């Protein structure tokens, strides 16, 4: 007996980006309805910004020099809250099993989740920037587009690594603790480059050769970790 024909299916080579965008849409829609991670991340980011502004005198030159670093610490801490939820939200009702059993490559699932995390974290960052500008007396809009580019590159690195480890730690009891512990050491090159680039950009300082090196480091980090993650995610998810 021949197996019965199912409904018409799309060509598999066309479906990779369609599947990734479907997963991203699903994550964004779910998050915008519950706002669980988004609200927690916003609140956490604003509290840290406020605490840093109390701990360091915002008008002093030294504080302004490290403002880029402070900003990325806020992004990294707030981002952990969003990244932790990324795969954890699939545990309810065994949704992760349904996704893994579906005819979707792990890479498409990973890309969809990374895109959703990138959008959510970017939203938190672009709300934090004006608050940061006010609290630290910094006119961050002088070099807006280069700054936006650096933030996008840094955020991509953060979300790529964070999403992989979110998948890796999803079944651990202490995943909220394990994720930052595993992710932050790996993110050091990405955060270092993003911090070095962001400082001069928010202060309106000129672009130097050293910054060019940092930009290359940031781009290389993003490319290498994106490729590694796409290649290894299937192994991480199916044991």
């Amino acid at each position: 007996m021949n197996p019965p024909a199912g409904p018409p299916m799309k060509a598999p080579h066309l479906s990779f980006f369609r599947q990734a965008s479907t997963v991203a849409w699903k994550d964004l829609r779910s998050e915008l309805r519950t706002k669980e991670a988004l609200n927690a991340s916003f609140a956490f980011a604003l509290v840290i910004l406020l605490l840093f502004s109390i701990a360091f005198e915002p008008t002093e030159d030294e504080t302004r020099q490290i403002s880029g670093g402070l900003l990325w610490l806020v992004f990294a801490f707030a981002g952990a809250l969003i990244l932790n939820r990324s795969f954890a939200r699939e545990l309810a009702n065994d949704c992760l099993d349904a996704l893994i059993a579906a005819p979707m490559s792990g890479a498409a699932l990973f890309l969809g989740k990374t895109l959703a995390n990138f959008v959510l974290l970017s939203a938190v960052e672009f709300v934090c920037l004006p608050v940061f500008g006010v609290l630290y007396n910094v006119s961050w809009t002088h070099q807006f587009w280069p700054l936006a580019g650096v933030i996008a590159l840094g955020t991509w690195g953060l979300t790529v690594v964070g999403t992989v480890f979110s998948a890796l730690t999803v079944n651990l009891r202490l995943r909220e603790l394990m994720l930052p512990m595993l992710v932050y050491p790996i993110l050091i090159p990405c955060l270092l480059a993003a911090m070095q680039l962001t400082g001069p950009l928010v202060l309106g300082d000129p672009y130097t050769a050293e910054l060019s090196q940092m930009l290359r480091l940031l781009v290389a980090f993003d490319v290498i970790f994106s490729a590694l993650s796409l290649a290894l995610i299937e192994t991480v998810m199916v044991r």
Partner: protein
Amino acid sequence: MKPVEIAGVWKFYGDFPALRDITFDVEPGASMALLGRNGAGKTTLLRMLAGLSRPGRGTIRICGTDARDRMTRRSIGILGHGISLYEELSAIENLRLFARIYGVEDADAAASEWLERTGLEKVRDGLVREFSRGMRQRLAVARAFLHSPSVLLLDEPFTALDDRAIALLQSLLRDAIAEGRTVVLSTHQLREALELATHVALLVRGRLAYTGERTGEMLEDTGWLYRQYGEPQSVTA
């Protein structure tokens, strides 16, 4: 080409062998009831058939290819312990999501059709978190059947279902078997399983104790198989 081929499969959790040298095939259009007590390895075996877990040793082939092959996964429908639906999405959004992931060409039409077949068309825009247990179960059934899979894997499908959902699932499974689809279901509910099954496999502590056609004897006396091939019952005072 057989829809399900299992050859010399072992699965270890640490050093513990959860499945030991399992070998059997399921013919096209057959309905295999996977029976066994708690911890016998039914769910472990079904998870491997669905490509959710890899065998420690041996091979599993679905429709002649590896269970993790992408094209093979298109032909599998799975209904597991969880309903695998998103609470924050509506019924139609959930079905549309899975239809798109499975590459169904007209996802909207397929989702609407299955909402109608499961009697949920009136609550199509309702969020799953607001659904009763029975409605969730019917939606889960719709999700598993949505892409017309040729192999259906069902893990305890009758557990916690209300009467309406049991009747719906039995009717859909009968239709699926009549259409030549292959069904593998694990369950403790022997009566429902044996009525649907054409074949039976009994697992005892990870070993295959019996496999073969479902006989009239099994249907007349649902405990017969366990008495013949299962573990002896311990008697307590």
